């Protein structure tokens, strides 16, 4: 049996009578998946991320588990609305949405069936026209996920939190599809957490989020991927931005055995701005592949991309940064930085900036570094009485700090700092506490 057959057998498509526009797009994706199959090492875009082991798995559809409770440490305290999916299935009991006028938060299937919102322009429309197999699979099999719809001029003050939790699950796969529509001059913060609890086996979470920003909309989006270390996470964040809109995608990748994430942004009208932040912290044999793409389709758009990874043991990070500046996208200002810190001689970082510039009056800057902690800094701290272990901890955190500093929500900053402190160096930092640890950059 081929990997694809294996994969297809295991998946179920929804029985519900869905609107034609929806089911026909699912059918198209399903046909494409059958014809093209899943990505292999021969695909240039997937060359550095080996999925051989994943393809040997026989994934079954996920089933819901018994009730679980979430710990405070996994939640964003300031969030007022929360949707929780357990093994890809909505858990209404854990979900809690407070009413905000002009804001609608719904499960995908319900939103599609009720047809109160016109989702036709927003489902599968911000994704690449030549999707890879996992994206096709996500489109074909998506029956779960969330839809956030924000009306014109609505400012949603507190963050909206979506939790995808894998709980006591074996070799299951789920394909959640999420849609965020921010209408004109609306403003919202959305936090996606991908976490695990209980015993979690070799599961696959294939999770795609589409963002549509109308004129002047501002969205601050977080994807906090902290899957079980045995898990696969394949995902995508695909956005399309209209005039003067402002999107920040913050990509925090800490978990999973192998993760692959597409972060694609299309700036479709003048004045749009997109900021992409990424912090990847890996150890053991973890592997995280981030494929980013910013398309400057129109003039006077700006983008600012800042990705950092910290790699210990024999972990590996892959970063691709593609910036495409279309022919009439004059006065584009695009910046891309990727910095990698290797804490072990066996860790590996691959970084690949790709700039395709067809306009002639643009500013595009990019830089990539791979390095280790500076020994002169370690010596300096040690000479002040700080142990070598703590000196290295401080310097490692300092490296992560300027990305974390870009996150606008204090909750997230603090939680993430604490998690990184715990994850990377446990005791060394608990001695001094992490409050006020990080310097302000001049």
């Amino acid at each position, binding site marked *: 049996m081929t990997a694809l057959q294996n994969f297809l057998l295991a998946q179920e498509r929804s029985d519900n009578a869905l609107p034609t526009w929806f089911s026909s797009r699912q059918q198209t994706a399903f046909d494409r998946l059958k014809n093209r199959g899943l990505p292999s090492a021969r695909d240039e875009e997937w060359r550095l991320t080996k999925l051989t082991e994943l393809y040997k798995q026989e994934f079954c559809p996920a089933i819901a588990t018994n009730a679980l409770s979430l710990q405070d440490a996994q939640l964003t305290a300031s969030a007022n609305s929360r949707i929780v999916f357990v093994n890809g299935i909505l858990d209404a009991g854990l979900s809690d949405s407070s009413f905000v006028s002009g804001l609608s938060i719904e499960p995908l299937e319900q939103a599609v069936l009720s047809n109160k919102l016109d989702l036709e322009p927003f489902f599968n429309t911000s994704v690449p026209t030549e999707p890879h197999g996992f994206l096709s699979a996500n489109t074909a099999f998506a029956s779960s996920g969330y839809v956030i719809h924000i009306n014109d001029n609505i400012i949603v003050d507190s963050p909206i939190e979506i939790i995808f939790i894998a709980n006591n699950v074996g070799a299951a796969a789920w394909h959640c599809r999420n849609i965020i529509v921010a209408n004109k001059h609306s403003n919202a913060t959305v936090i996606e957490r991908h976490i695990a609890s209980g015993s979690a086996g070799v599961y696959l979470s294939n999770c795609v989020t589409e963002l549509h920003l109308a004129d002047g909309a501002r969205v601050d989006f977080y994807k906090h991927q902290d899957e079980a270390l045995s898990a696969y996470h394949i995902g995508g964040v695909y956005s399309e931005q209209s005039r003067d809109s402002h999107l920040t995608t913050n990509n925090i990748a800490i978990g999973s055995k192998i993760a692959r994430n597409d972060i694609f942004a299309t700036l479709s009208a003048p004045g749009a701005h997109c900021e992409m932040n990424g912090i990847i912290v890996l150890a053991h044999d973890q592997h995280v592949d981030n494929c980013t793409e910013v398309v400057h389709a129109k003039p006077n758009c700006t983008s600012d991309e800042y990705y950092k990874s910290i790699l210990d043991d024999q972990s590996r990070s892959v970063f691709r940064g593609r910036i495409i500046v279309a022919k009439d996208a004059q006065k584009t200002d695009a910046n891309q930085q990727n910095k990698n810190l290797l804490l072990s001689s066996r860790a590996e970082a691959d970084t690949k900036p790709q700039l395709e510039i067809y306009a002639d009056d643009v500013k595009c800057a990019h830089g990539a570094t791979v390095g280790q902690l500076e020994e*002169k800094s370690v010596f300096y701290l040690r000479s002040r*009485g700080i142990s070598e272990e703590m000196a290295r901890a401080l310097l490692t955190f300092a490296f992560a*700090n300027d990305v974390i500093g870009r996150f606008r929500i204090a909750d997230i900053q603090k939680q993430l700092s604490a998690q990184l402190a715990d994850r990377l160096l446990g005791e060394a930092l608990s001695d001094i506490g992490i409050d006020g640890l990080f310097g302000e950059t001049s």
Partner: protein
Amino acid sequence: MLSIKNLKAEIDGKQILNDLSLEVGAGEVHAIMGPNGSGKSTLANVLAGREGHEMTAGSIDYLGKNLTDYNVEERAAEGLFLAFQYPVEIPGVSNIAMLKAAVNSIRKYRKEDELTAGEFLKLIKEKAALVEMKQEFLQRSVNEGFSGGEKKRNEILQMAILEPTLSVLDETDSGLDIDALKIVAHGVNTLRSPDRSMIVVTHYQRLLDYIQPDYVHVLAGGKIVKTGDKDLALELEERGYGWLEQQVETG
């Protein structure tokens, strides 16, 4: 307090210190002067325990202990402080966090209780005033974007907070304008006490107008070739080092 006997040290296999001996008593301030490349900074770094500065012969006794038995951070906890010639910039670590980590690490080593947040802030405020450092510098990343003078003041601030028994100031005066020099010297002089010693490595006599040494040593060719009082510094200012180096070669 410090007794260095027949010290030889090399960097990357190249011998820098050659049979250097130096005795520093409690409460004394020793100035070490000498031409470029004579080994002044090497001596400072060997004392601090910097990697790559290999001691090949001789002994360093500090408060009755063999200094080389201690690693870098243990030396600091034992009361040895090096003010760097080129303080390192550490983006992302705040000055105050580094100081807190340093103070509490040293207290832990000495089996003392950690300072409370309140005690620590009080200490920092008091010492920052001593070197005329504004509060905002404490929140800034260590030395990042600091001017030369600010970096050196930051070194003295750290020294004032850690209250070392033996301070080694490695060309703390280089690149300072006269106002910054006075502030630095004031900070250093405030710390002088009968149970604290200092080794002031400098290229210029000017610093010694503000920090008056008990002894002045001239380091040349990796060893101390002449020792005197502060008048020796004035003589060096006038005559340079050539006459001493010649003496060494012919002697």
